[in-house]
Protein backbone atom coordinates (compact mmCIF):
# COMPACT_ATOMS: atom_id res chain seq x y z
CA UNK A 1 0.00 0.00 0.00
CA UNK A 2 2.83 2.38 0.89
CA UNK A 3 4.43 1.92 -2.51
CA UNK A 4 1.26 2.11 -4.51
CA UNK A 5 1.24 5.89 -4.94
CA UNK A 6 4.91 6.32 -5.94
CA UNK A 7 4.65 3.30 -8.21
CA UNK A 8 1.52 4.67 -9.86
CA UNK A 9 3.17 8.07 -10.34
CA UNK A 10 6.22 6.35 -11.80
CA UNK A 11 4.14 4.35 -14.27
CA UNK A 12 2.28 7.46 -15.40
CA UNK A 13 5.60 9.26 -15.85
CA UNK A 14 7.03 6.39 -17.89
CA UNK A 15 3.95 6.34 -20.13
CA UNK A 16 4.22 10.08 -20.80
CA UNK A 17 7.95 9.89 -21.45
CA UNK A 18 7.35 6.94 -23.77
CA UNK A 19 4.82 8.93 -25.79
CA UNK A 20 7.20 11.88 -25.83
CA UNK A 21 9.97 9.73 -27.27
CA UNK A 22 7.79 8.68 -30.16
CA UNK A 23 6.74 12.24 -31.06
CA UNK A 24 8.75 14.22 -33.55
CA UNK A 25 9.00 17.84 -32.40
CA UNK A 26 10.10 18.82 -35.90
CA UNK A 27 6.72 17.84 -37.23
CA UNK A 28 4.46 20.83 -36.94
CA UNK A 29 0.89 20.28 -38.12
CA UNK A 30 0.26 22.48 -41.13
CA UNK A 31 -2.75 24.80 -40.98
CA UNK A 32 -2.95 24.48 -44.77
CA UNK A 33 -4.37 20.95 -44.73
CA UNK A 34 -7.90 21.10 -46.11
CA UNK A 35 -7.34 24.59 -47.51
CA UNK A 36 -6.97 25.64 -51.15
CA UNK A 37 -3.35 25.55 -52.27
CA UNK A 38 -1.79 29.05 -52.12
CA UNK A 39 -1.49 30.51 -55.59
CA UNK A 40 1.69 31.73 -57.20
CA UNK A 41 3.01 32.27 -60.69
CA UNK A 42 6.69 31.51 -61.05
CA UNK A 43 9.05 30.70 -63.94
CA UNK A 44 9.72 27.09 -64.80
CA UNK A 45 13.23 25.90 -64.14
CA UNK A 46 13.85 24.54 -67.61
CA UNK A 47 11.74 27.11 -69.45
CA UNK A 48 12.10 30.41 -67.56
CA UNK A 49 10.02 32.26 -70.12
CA UNK A 50 7.03 30.14 -69.14
CA UNK A 51 5.31 30.56 -65.83
CA UNK A 52 3.62 27.87 -63.81
CA UNK A 53 0.80 28.29 -61.35
CA UNK A 54 -0.95 25.59 -59.30
CA UNK A 55 -4.17 26.52 -61.11
CA UNK A 56 -2.88 24.63 -64.15
CA UNK A 57 -3.10 21.32 -62.27
CA UNK A 58 -6.83 21.61 -61.50
CA UNK A 59 -8.68 18.38 -62.16
CA UNK A 60 -5.66 16.27 -61.33
CA UNK A 61 -4.28 14.80 -58.15
CA UNK A 62 -0.65 15.89 -57.91
CA UNK A 63 2.30 16.18 -55.58
CA UNK A 64 4.32 19.28 -54.93
CA UNK A 65 7.79 18.36 -53.78
CA UNK A 66 9.95 21.14 -52.35
CA UNK A 67 13.61 20.52 -53.07
CA UNK A 68 16.96 22.25 -53.51
CA UNK A 69 20.39 21.27 -54.73
CA UNK A 70 21.91 22.42 -51.42
CA UNK A 71 19.60 20.16 -49.42
CA UNK A 72 21.28 16.97 -48.25
CA UNK A 73 18.17 14.97 -47.39
CA UNK A 74 16.70 15.79 -50.82
CA UNK A 75 19.41 13.62 -52.29
CA UNK A 76 18.41 10.89 -49.88
CA UNK A 77 14.73 10.95 -50.85
CA UNK A 78 15.41 11.50 -54.55
CA UNK A 79 15.81 7.83 -55.42
CA UNK A 80 12.56 6.86 -53.66
CA UNK A 81 10.64 9.76 -55.13
CA UNK A 82 11.94 8.94 -58.62
CA UNK A 83 10.86 5.34 -58.27
CA UNK A 84 7.43 6.45 -57.13
CA UNK A 85 7.05 8.98 -59.96
CA UNK A 86 8.08 6.32 -62.48
CA UNK A 87 4.98 4.26 -61.65
CA UNK A 88 3.02 7.09 -63.27
CA UNK A 89 0.33 6.96 -60.62
CA UNK A 90 0.65 10.65 -59.86
CA UNK A 91 2.39 13.67 -61.36
CA UNK A 92 5.06 15.30 -59.27
CA UNK A 93 5.84 18.98 -59.60
CA UNK A 94 9.08 20.22 -58.07
CA UNK A 95 9.39 23.52 -56.26
CA UNK A 96 13.05 24.43 -56.45
CA UNK A 97 13.36 26.38 -53.23
CA UNK A 98 15.95 29.14 -52.75
CA UNK A 99 18.32 27.67 -55.25
CA UNK A 100 20.43 28.80 -58.18
CA UNK A 101 18.78 27.57 -61.40
CA UNK A 102 22.17 26.48 -62.75
CA UNK A 103 22.94 24.37 -59.68
CA UNK A 104 19.43 22.94 -59.74
CA UNK A 105 19.64 21.90 -63.40
CA UNK A 106 23.03 20.31 -62.81
CA UNK A 107 21.65 18.38 -59.85
CA UNK A 108 18.76 17.03 -61.93
CA UNK A 109 20.90 16.00 -64.86
CA UNK A 110 23.23 14.22 -62.46
CA UNK A 111 20.59 12.36 -60.44
CA UNK A 112 17.70 12.14 -62.88
CA UNK A 113 14.57 14.24 -63.15
CA UNK A 114 11.41 12.70 -61.68
CA UNK A 115 9.41 15.91 -62.03
CA UNK A 116 6.77 16.80 -64.57
CA UNK A 117 8.38 20.22 -64.29
CA UNK A 118 10.15 22.24 -61.65
CA UNK A 119 9.40 25.76 -60.59
CA UNK A 120 12.11 28.20 -59.70
CA UNK A 121 11.35 29.86 -56.35
CA UNK A 122 14.63 31.67 -55.98
CA UNK A 123 13.57 34.00 -53.18
CA UNK A 124 11.44 31.46 -51.36
CA UNK A 125 8.27 33.56 -51.69
CA UNK A 126 6.04 30.67 -52.71
CA UNK A 127 7.75 28.57 -50.03
CA UNK A 128 6.73 31.11 -47.42
CA UNK A 129 3.11 31.05 -48.59
CA UNK A 130 3.10 27.26 -48.46
CA UNK A 131 4.53 27.30 -44.93
CA UNK A 132 7.76 25.59 -45.94
CA UNK A 133 10.30 25.40 -43.11
CA UNK A 134 12.25 22.21 -43.63
CA UNK A 135 13.23 21.10 -47.12
CA UNK A 136 12.33 18.56 -48.46
CA UNK A 137 8.58 18.78 -48.06
CA UNK A 138 5.89 17.04 -50.03
CA UNK A 139 2.29 18.18 -50.44
CA UNK A 140 -0.58 16.12 -51.82
CA UNK A 141 -3.12 18.26 -53.70
CA UNK A 142 -6.50 16.95 -54.81
CA UNK A 143 -8.46 17.56 -58.02
CA UNK A 144 -10.11 20.66 -56.61
CA UNK A 145 -6.78 22.19 -55.74
CA UNK A 146 -7.06 21.58 -52.00
CA UNK A 147 -4.01 20.49 -49.97
CA UNK A 148 -4.80 17.13 -48.39
CA UNK A 149 -1.52 16.07 -46.85
CA UNK A 150 1.91 17.39 -46.03
CA UNK A 151 5.04 15.41 -45.40
CA UNK A 152 7.83 17.38 -43.75
CA UNK A 153 11.25 15.90 -44.30
CA UNK A 154 12.35 13.24 -46.77
CA UNK A 155 9.89 10.63 -48.00
CA UNK A 156 10.93 6.98 -47.77
CA UNK A 157 9.43 3.84 -49.34
CA UNK A 158 7.39 3.23 -46.19
CA UNK A 159 5.72 6.65 -46.24
CA UNK A 160 5.17 6.48 -49.99
CA UNK A 161 3.55 3.05 -49.83
CA UNK A 162 1.57 3.42 -46.62
CA UNK A 163 0.55 7.07 -46.62
CA UNK A 164 0.94 8.79 -49.98
CA UNK A 165 -0.11 5.96 -52.30
CA UNK A 166 -3.41 5.09 -50.55
CA UNK A 167 -4.26 8.79 -50.28
CA UNK A 168 -3.57 9.39 -53.98
CA UNK A 169 -5.72 6.39 -54.86
CA UNK A 170 -8.67 7.63 -52.82
CA UNK A 171 -8.30 11.14 -54.20
CA UNK A 172 -8.16 9.81 -57.75
CA UNK A 173 -11.56 8.27 -57.10
CA UNK A 174 -13.07 11.59 -56.02
CA UNK A 175 -14.97 13.77 -58.43
CA UNK A 176 -13.19 16.87 -59.60
Amino acid at each position, binding site marked *: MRYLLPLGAFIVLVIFLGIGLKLDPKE*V*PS*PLIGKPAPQFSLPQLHAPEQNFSPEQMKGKVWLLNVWASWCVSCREEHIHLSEFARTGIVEVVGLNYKDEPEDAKKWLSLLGNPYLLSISDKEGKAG*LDWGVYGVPETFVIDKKGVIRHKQTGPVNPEILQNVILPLVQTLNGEAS
Partner: protein
Amino acid sequence: MKLAMILLVLFSCSLHAEIKIYDFKDPALEQRYQGLTEELRCLVCQNQNIADSHAELAEDLRGKVYELLNKGESDAQIVEYMTNRYGDFVLYRPPLKSKTLILWLAPILTVLLGAFGFWAVLRKRDKPQEHLSDAERRRIEELLKRKSE
Protein backbone atom coordinates in the same frame (compact mmCIF):
# COMPACT_ATOMS: atom_id res chain seq x y z
CA MET B 1 51.35 30.25 -30.20
CA LYS B 2 49.75 33.17 -28.43
CA LEU B 3 49.47 35.03 -31.69
CA ALA B 4 47.88 32.04 -33.33
CA MET B 5 45.31 31.88 -30.57
CA ILE B 6 44.50 35.55 -30.88
CA LEU B 7 44.16 35.22 -34.63
CA LEU B 8 41.93 32.21 -34.18
CA VAL B 9 39.65 34.08 -31.81
CA LEU B 10 39.47 37.11 -34.08
CA PHE B 11 38.86 34.99 -37.12
CA SER B 12 36.15 32.89 -35.53
CA CYS B 13 34.24 36.05 -34.63
CA SER B 14 34.15 37.15 -38.23
CA LEU B 15 32.58 33.84 -39.17
CA HIS B 16 29.46 34.53 -37.15
CA ALA B 17 26.46 35.30 -39.28
CA GLU B 18 25.07 38.69 -38.49
CA ILE B 19 21.45 39.50 -37.98
CA LYS B 20 20.36 42.04 -40.54
CA ILE B 21 19.32 45.32 -39.00
CA TYR B 22 16.33 47.01 -40.51
CA ASP B 23 15.99 50.75 -40.68
CA PHE B 24 12.80 52.28 -39.46
CA LYS B 25 11.77 55.88 -39.99
CA ASP B 26 9.23 55.64 -37.26
CA PRO B 27 10.47 54.51 -33.82
CA ALA B 28 6.98 53.25 -32.96
CA LEU B 29 7.20 50.89 -35.91
CA GLU B 30 10.58 49.67 -34.75
CA GLN B 31 9.13 48.98 -31.32
CA ARG B 32 6.36 46.92 -32.87
CA TYR B 33 8.91 45.09 -35.01
CA GLN B 34 10.86 44.20 -31.85
CA GLY B 35 7.72 43.02 -30.09
CA LEU B 36 6.50 40.90 -32.98
CA THR B 37 9.80 39.20 -33.74
CA GLU B 38 10.21 38.33 -30.08
CA GLU B 39 6.74 36.78 -29.92
CA LEU B 40 7.13 34.69 -33.07
CA ARG B 41 8.83 31.35 -32.83
CA CYS B 42 11.29 30.03 -35.37
CA LEU B 43 10.29 26.66 -36.83
CA VAL B 44 13.84 25.59 -37.51
CA CYS B 45 15.45 26.40 -34.17
CA GLN B 46 12.32 25.67 -32.23
CA ASN B 47 13.51 27.09 -28.95
CA GLN B 48 14.31 30.49 -30.37
CA ASN B 49 12.17 33.38 -31.45
CA ILE B 50 12.73 34.83 -34.88
CA ALA B 51 14.45 37.88 -33.41
CA ASP B 52 17.30 35.75 -32.05
CA SER B 53 17.54 32.96 -34.58
CA HIS B 54 20.21 32.84 -37.26
CA ALA B 55 18.25 30.30 -39.30
CA GLU B 56 17.54 31.36 -42.84
CA LEU B 57 13.83 30.91 -42.33
CA ALA B 58 13.91 33.30 -39.37
CA GLU B 59 15.67 35.82 -41.58
CA ASP B 60 12.93 35.51 -44.20
CA LEU B 61 10.23 35.85 -41.58
CA ARG B 62 11.88 38.96 -40.13
CA GLY B 63 11.96 40.40 -43.63
CA LYS B 64 8.27 39.60 -44.01
CA VAL B 65 7.39 41.26 -40.69
CA TYR B 66 9.33 44.35 -41.80
CA GLU B 67 7.58 44.37 -45.15
CA LEU B 68 4.10 43.97 -43.68
CA LEU B 69 4.73 46.62 -41.01
CA ASN B 70 5.74 49.11 -43.68
CA LYS B 71 2.62 48.21 -45.62
CA GLY B 72 0.70 49.49 -42.64
CA GLU B 73 -0.70 46.17 -41.40
CA SER B 74 -1.68 45.84 -37.77
CA ASP B 75 0.04 43.46 -35.33
CA ALA B 76 -3.01 41.20 -35.39
CA GLN B 77 -2.90 41.04 -39.18
CA ILE B 78 0.78 40.12 -39.16
CA VAL B 79 0.26 37.42 -36.54
CA GLU B 80 -2.63 36.09 -38.64
CA TYR B 81 -0.41 36.05 -41.71
CA MET B 82 2.06 33.84 -39.83
CA THR B 83 -0.48 31.49 -38.25
CA ASN B 84 -2.23 31.02 -41.60
CA ARG B 85 1.01 29.56 -42.93
CA TYR B 86 2.68 27.95 -39.95
CA GLY B 87 -0.15 27.39 -37.46
CA ASP B 88 -0.35 28.33 -33.79
CA PHE B 89 3.06 26.76 -33.35
CA VAL B 90 4.73 30.03 -34.39
CA LEU B 91 3.22 31.81 -31.39
CA TYR B 92 5.03 31.74 -28.09
CA ARG B 93 1.66 32.53 -26.53
CA PRO B 94 -0.81 30.30 -28.34
CA PRO B 95 -4.51 31.20 -28.07
CA LEU B 96 -6.67 29.38 -25.56
CA LYS B 97 -8.74 26.80 -27.44
CA SER B 98 -9.77 23.20 -26.89
CA LYS B 99 -6.57 21.94 -28.51
CA THR B 100 -4.30 24.08 -26.34
CA LEU B 101 -6.32 23.73 -23.15
CA ILE B 102 -3.94 21.23 -21.59
CA LEU B 103 -1.03 23.55 -22.34
CA TRP B 104 -2.63 26.36 -20.40
CA LEU B 105 -4.10 24.30 -17.55
CA ALA B 106 -1.22 21.91 -16.88
CA PRO B 107 0.89 24.41 -14.85
CA ILE B 108 -2.07 25.36 -12.66
CA LEU B 109 -3.01 21.72 -12.14
CA THR B 110 0.57 20.83 -11.26
CA VAL B 111 0.74 23.58 -8.63
CA LEU B 112 -2.62 22.49 -7.19
CA LEU B 113 -1.47 18.87 -7.07
CA GLY B 114 1.74 19.90 -5.32
CA ALA B 115 -0.17 22.01 -2.81
CA PHE B 116 -2.49 19.12 -2.08
CA GLY B 117 0.43 16.76 -1.54
CA PHE B 118 2.10 19.25 0.77
CA TRP B 119 -1.08 19.70 2.76
CA ALA B 120 -1.56 15.94 3.05
CA VAL B 121 1.96 15.45 4.37
CA LEU B 122 1.63 18.27 6.88
CA ARG B 123 -1.67 16.97 8.18
CA LYS B 124 -0.22 13.55 8.72
CA ARG B 125 2.71 15.01 10.62
CA ASP B 126 0.53 17.15 12.92
CA LYS B 127 -1.41 14.19 14.25
CA PRO B 128 0.01 12.84 17.53
CA GLN B 129 1.37 9.42 16.85
CA GLU B 130 -0.07 6.91 19.22
CA HIS B 131 0.20 3.27 18.62
CA LEU B 132 0.11 2.18 22.24
CA SER B 133 -2.29 -0.45 23.36
CA ASP B 134 -4.14 -0.09 26.67
CA ALA B 135 -1.89 -2.65 28.32
CA GLU B 136 1.22 -0.74 27.26
CA ARG B 137 -0.18 2.53 28.52
CA ARG B 138 -0.95 1.00 31.89
CA ARG B 139 2.58 -0.31 32.10
CA ILE B 140 4.04 3.13 31.29
CA GLU B 141 1.97 4.75 33.97
CA GLU B 142 3.08 2.10 36.41
CA LEU B 143 6.73 2.67 35.54
CA LEU B 144 6.40 6.43 35.88
CA LYS B 145 4.71 6.06 39.22
CA ARG B 146 7.42 3.78 40.51
CA LYS B 147 10.09 6.28 39.45
CA SER B 148 8.48 9.18 41.27
CA GLU B 149 8.16 7.21 44.46
